[in-house]
């Protein structure tokens, strides 16, 4: 297991480093974790290299029939500790998968399956949005919090720009649902924020398509805040797909 273990470590570290350098890691964890992932990758690679070198040296001395001092060092755990090692092979599964195809950003599948973000418990007392110099880009979370703050006063008469993906519709209400996940740590704790987009002309964008919607807040007594769209532009998934 030792030489193989070293190899697995090198692969695991390489995958982590690659995820970080290509920016793919933001599909899975918060962008702030980048440096830590890179550091982790380097450490794991270094550990793997040391282990591999030691294992190779050990097997060479053993191969020559020598009983050198290096003999007892690296490979010991595999023998003395029967339960060890074996399970480590499982690390190969995500490594192999990630080397080839990185799973995508979370899509609309999970919207409606988990609890949505509670926007009512957030900040109170927003300053009005000033959109005299064009629509104001805003997170879905901020939009929703503003919508529930004094009935959406701070959004009155202003144009905003929201970016998210199209979630499957819940079969009532017009327009489509725009969603984006909030993550605290990683994609496993993702919770969606949802905004209903109404007033669009022409075909609705397809499910899971990323869009930037420009429009204004539509006051109403609904659980999901609504945006009257003036334009809907299809875009590629952003670098940081979560809020």
């Amino acid at each position, binding site marked *: 297991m030792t030489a193989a273990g070293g190899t697995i470590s090198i692969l695991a570290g390489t995958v982590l480093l690659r995820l970080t350098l290509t920016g793919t890691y933001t599909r899975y964890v918060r962008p702030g974790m980048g440096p830590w992932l890179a550091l982790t990758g380097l450490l794991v690679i270094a550990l793997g290299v040391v282990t591999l070198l030691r294992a190779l040296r*050990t097997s060479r001395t053993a191969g020559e029939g020598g009983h050198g001092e290096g003999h007892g060092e690296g490979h010991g755990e595999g023998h003395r500790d029967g339960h060890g090692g074996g399970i480590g092979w499982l690390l190969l599964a995500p490594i192999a998968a990630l080397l080839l195809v990185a799973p995508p950003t979370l899509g609309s599948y999970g919207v409606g399956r988990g609890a949505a973000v509670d926007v009512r418990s957030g900040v109170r007392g927003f300053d009005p949005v000033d959109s005299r110099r064009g629509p104001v880009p805003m997170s879905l979370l901020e939009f929703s919090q503003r919508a529930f703050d004094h009935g959406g006063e701070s959004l009155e008469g202003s144009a905003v720009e929201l970016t998210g993906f199209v979630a499957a519709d819940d079969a009532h209400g017009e327009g489509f649902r725009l969603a984006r996940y909030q993550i605290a740590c990683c994609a496993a704790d993702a919770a969606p924020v949802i905004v209903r987009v109404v007033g669009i002309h022409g075909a609705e964008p397809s499910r899971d398509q990323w869009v930037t919607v420009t429009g204004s807040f539509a006051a109403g007594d609904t659980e999901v805040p609504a945006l009257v769209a003036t334009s809907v532009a299809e875009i590629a998934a952003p670098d940081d797909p979560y809020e």
Partner: protein
Amino acid sequence: MVRAVTDQSPPPGAHTAEQARSVVRRPDVGVAIVAVVVVAAALFRPLLQDLLDRPAIANWATVFVAITVQAMPFLVLGVTISAVVAAFVPAGLLPRLLPRRPALAVPAAAAAGAALPGCECGSVPIAQRLVARGAPAPAALAFLLSAPAINPVVLVATAVAFPGRPAVVLARFLASLIAATVVGLLWARRGGDDLLDRARRRIGDDGPRLAVLTGTAQHDLLHAGGFLIVGAATAATLQTVVPRSVLDAVADAGPLAVLALAGLAVVMAICSEADAFIAASLTEFSLTARLAFMVVGPMVDVKLVALQAGTFGRRFALRFAPLTLVVAVASSAVIGWWLL
């Protein structure tokens, strides 16, 4: 001089010719298997791509990879600390430092958990190393449970998730500390100490310090990493297959709601630094039920139980995890009733 040599090298005759041969053979076979797996995966790439076009499978894969990637830095931190302990802490030191009586050692160890900023994956190899280094098992287990729950990072995250409600932070701190201490004391009183024999087995901690350091780190990393994969796959499956809306039915049902969120914590296996945000979003549940979610999560979840089973043995985990679950739920119920 002679003495130093006998201390550091294996006794003569410990390595038979057969062992030497297996040492030569094994690395080659192992590396070959690694290579085969990687090549096979490359050949099946189109198949993988097709699978990921299905939303449910893509969701599973993303959650699986996310849990694994997110846990790696913490796991490496834990493994590093564990290896440093193995290499640099003399064998007799820990038992001397800790009070002999469990009644003192357990609460002290539980409180010491506050000093390790990280989430639960890192604390398992550390606790195992503490046991291997002669720390009393109940104290090491109390530390194992409390460290991911009451460290400053987690408490700050909780305060951010529940703005204007410091009582939630206090309740989380107290309920977790009490649960960890009670489990430790119960284990001291009637836990099967023999269940921890595996953790006490000395694994490669003789020899030059650098060799011990890297050998231990490599072993722990692969070992814990493998079980992390099992746990992450389980959690991803449960998250993908079971819609969380099944819980809404019991949201108003008092004690049942507490049990439901405790169960959710076990199933979701999210990082203790993130669970407060999920708890905050479960608004249809009582604060006590959400407290149970935050107390149980860092102590018992599918990923953590897999790690514990791998590190300490299956029989240990079968007894330890249910005990911890019961104590954690009870502690949350009492503290929640009192404070929230």
